[in-house]
């Protein structure tokens, strides 16, 4: 039986791990390799490294820290930020990453998803979607772009439910849905939105944004039937350990990797 995955996300800027709240005010959390090792030892099923600067400034993500992480890490990891074509993705994968995640660049040029899937297979292509509610009454969500900083962030006008379906059709192997209204708040995942997106997809869906307590992980797996749950602040701040969450999930009858 496939296990539900817990995925710490490490935001990387200038070679160090940082964390912001509601996509702003980043503070330094520590060295990438040291944190990667800590989460691997703590029982993380997978890691995501999000290069927030490469995404906004237009630089490509640096190869050197990916290589340093790959030498150490014997669990899968994904790199996001700064992947804009097949060659930049190849650099990241050849350095040892298992997957690349595209977000703004795929919105600007959806064909990018198809090109990456053709070159590396769908299993290596994750599409990250930053989504916010725009109409509470009709439960309508829209996709946001360039969310690395408050200054550059803007709505694309695309409906989230349409975009995730298009991403899957174009060859995405997995969707990470970052629910921006919940991000960094710690009041729980956006179950309504995740359920709506889940119903549109056949590929795996990863929930992101809002985790603050063990019950939030139980709810997102049970109610929204996601395949994995991504979190950052709750782990970085030491509020919860992966072991605590897995113990709780096991008690709830949810299969996790021990």
């Amino acid at each position, binding site marked *: *039986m*496939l*296990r539900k*995955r817990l995925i710490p996300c490490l935001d990387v800027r200038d070679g160090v791990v940082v964390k912001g709240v509601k996509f702003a005010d980043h503070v330094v959390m520590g060295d990438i390799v040291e944190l990667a090792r800590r989460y*691997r030892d703590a029982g993380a*099923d997978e890691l995501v490294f999000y290069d927030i600067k490469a995404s906004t400034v237009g630089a490509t993500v640096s190869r050197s820290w990916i*290589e340093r992480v*790959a*030498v150490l890490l*014997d*669990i*899968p990891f994904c790199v996001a930020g700064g992947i804009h074509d097949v060659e930049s993705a*190849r650099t990241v*994968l*050849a*350095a*040892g990453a*298992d997957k690349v995640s595209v977000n703004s660049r795929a919105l600007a040029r959806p064909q990018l998803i198809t090109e990456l899937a053709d070159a*590396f*297979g*769908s*299993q*290596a292509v994750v599409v990250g979607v930053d989504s916010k509610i725009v109409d509470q009454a009709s439960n309508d969500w829209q996709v946001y772009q360039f969310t690395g900083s408050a200054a550059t962030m803007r709505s694309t006008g695309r409906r989230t439910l349409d975009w995730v379906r298009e991403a899957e059709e174009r060859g995405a*192997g*997995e969707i990470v849905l970052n629910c921006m209204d919940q991000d960094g708040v710690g009041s729980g995942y956006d179950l309504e939105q995740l359920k709506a997106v889940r119903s549109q997809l*056949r*590929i*795996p869906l990863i929930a992101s944004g809002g985790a603050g307590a063990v019950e939030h992980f139980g709810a997102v797996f049970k109610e929204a039937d996601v*395949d*994995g749950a991504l979190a950052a602040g709750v782990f970085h701040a030491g509020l919860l350990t992966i072991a605590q969450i897995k113990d709780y999930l096991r008690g709830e009858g949810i299969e996790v*990797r*021990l």
Partner: protein
Amino acid sequence: MIAVVDTGGANLKSVTNALCRLEAEYCLTSDPKKIAAADRVILPGVGAARDAMRRLEAANLIPTLKNLKQPVLGICLGMQLLFESSEEGDVACLGLIPGRVVRLKDDPSARVPHMGWNNLVKCDSEEPLLSGVDEDDCFYFVHSFRAPDGPWVKAMTKHGELLPAIVSYGNVKGVQFHPEKSEQPGSKILRSFIQC
């Protein structure tokens, strides 16, 4: 010396990094002579079957790979290439194990790709690769196609249907999962292969 076949895929680093961690002697190569002379051969692979076979052909590696007598380990797509053919791109493969690789059944409760950590079931206790592997050990799978059933299947995993996870046929072995990305349980499998 272990020859890791340079299939031109993007994930070779993961395999060589894992061998480094095990302090195994290896070379990454596409030289048929080096591969033929190695004590053991690992055929990695991520991507699509047709592309991978095309690359092996371009490197003139197919006759060499078909005639290996030493222990061979195919990983993920590398395992699928050991069979006669694949539905993925409808391509002839190495034919070292009988049968055809087919797409996973689409099932709402078992999403494709089969991506994530899964345990092994129906394990053959005589299989050397399984030495030291516990019932609860999980392995990292990422694939959309599956190997055929047959006497070569030494362990399975359940994702909707039961799928071959480890195969062994003469000197040729294959794992559908990525031992190089499967933490301690994966290291056990790789170490067993190095020692078999």
